[in-house]
């Protein structure tokens, strides 16, 4: 089963998204950017990242920048999953190399379809 890393500071959102994806993907979770980077070593190969934008310690855009600096994650698809509707954040994410932008709340089956399209 392909692996997806989900990074969001809300446990409720992580529960909902995990339940939507768990039948088709193995889901690895972290509650902020720092913990996500820490978990990467022992997680094996990640097929797609799902990142929230507004998080404590390290926000999603900073994490995206860090991932794109690493050779093994340079081309791995990254979907920003966020409440953020301000255009400047979306533009910044696109500039940093995000693959897509998903605004919360989202319907779980639509999110799953989008992920399948990108990650297979």
């Amino acid at each position, binding site marked *: 089963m392909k692996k997806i890393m989900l990074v969001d500071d809300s446990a*409720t959102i992580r529960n909902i998204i995990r339940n939507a994806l768990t039948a088709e993907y193995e889901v690895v979770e972290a509650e902020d950017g720092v913990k996500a980077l820490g978990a990467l070593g022992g997680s094996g190969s990640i097929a797609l990242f799902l990142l929230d934008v507004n998080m404590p310690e390290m926000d999603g855009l900073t994490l995206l920048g860090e991932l794109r600096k690493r050779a093994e994650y340079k081309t791995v698809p990254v979907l920003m999953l966020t409440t953020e*509707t*301000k255009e*400047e954040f979306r533009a910044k994410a696109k500039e940093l190399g995000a693959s*897509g*932008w998903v*605004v919360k*709340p*989202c319907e779980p089956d639509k999110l799953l379809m989008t992920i399948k399209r*990108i990650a297979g």
Partner: protein
Amino acid sequence: MRERNKAAVCAAVTAYVSAAVLLTAAGGKMSAANAVYAVFAAAVQAAVMFALLRGGEKTAERGPETGGTEEKTGACEESGRTAEGSARSDESGAAAEEEKKYGSTVRALAVRTEYMRAVTEELCKAIAQSLSSTTEPISEELLKIRRTGEAFLSGMKEYEEDIRKKTTVRRLEEESGKFERDLKMLSDTAGEIFTTIDSRMGKLRTVSEKIGETAGSISEISEQIRLLSFNASIEAARAGKAGAGFRVIAGEIKKLSADTEARLGEIRETLKETQTIFTDIGKGLEENRKRMLEVVAGREEGFRSFGTELEAYFPRLEQLYTGITGMIGSLSKSMDVISPVVQLHEITGQEIGNLGQVTDDYCRYVAERVKDMAAEKAVKAEKEEREEVTEEIRKHLTTESELKALERGIKKVSPEAQVELGMNTCGIELF
């Protein structure tokens, strides 16, 4: 001074009224939106009151400013009239001085507060609306889940005792145990039959070999007889008086005939043996057949009762299965309904946090302005003030609902204002 005291008194009265409104809301006579706004309004007014009173204390500490020494007049009345006129001109001078020092701050605060009040009112309304729109569907779905669970349990109540004591399961276990033992017996019996047949087949093989050998001898003999007949016919052709050769031949034929008789005797004996073997096999098979029939007959009653138990149990199993799959289906449906609503509920919590940051910023702004009260900062034009407050609030907001509330709030104060929200409303976008 009088202006400042008036403002402080007004702020205090407003704070008191807001607290009273909040208590009324607690008694359930007010909507959630107005209650949230009332709390915020009380906090803002208290912040303003505090800032203004602190400004008053600082003025009191500094004391009145004095110029050079004044000459006193001689007569009391004249001095009194002069003193009174002098006091009045002192008062209006001081007022003008204070107006000059503090007016710009108060005006700036007034403009900022006006925008803040309108925007936070809209934000609170949006939050309250989100809360009520999410709480109701979640409660409804939870009720549905509870009703489904209760219906399932009441359906199962009939079998509760049976399930608890596992009566049927134990009976089925017993019957299936017996069934297993009988099957073993049948299979052992069949095994014995095959062993018996196998050993008999060995004997049959030996017998058929003997028959084969004998048949071989007989064909040798018949070949010899043929040759002899041939020779006899030759001799007969040459005979006449010399019949001696014929006699020899006849003697040989007799011997051969005796041999043949002996071989046939052997074959007869062998066939008898074969018959005995087949009879034995037949007897053995018959015995085992009877045994198996006895076992099966004995199990018939057991099978019938097993079948009856299963027949009674299957509808229950079916009902249990249908109940469970129905409940799982209903739960899945409820989760599908709840999921986006729960996300929205979670997002509303985030919006409340954002509102807290907005009011935090505002209180900091008030405190800084009051600190710099005497610095006589120039009052910004309203457009500039509006743009500044819009951007400061906007940086804390994230969702479409919040940004639209900001727009509504700004336009309430300045209907002609053009508010740049810089909002992206695309739900899912792939780059």
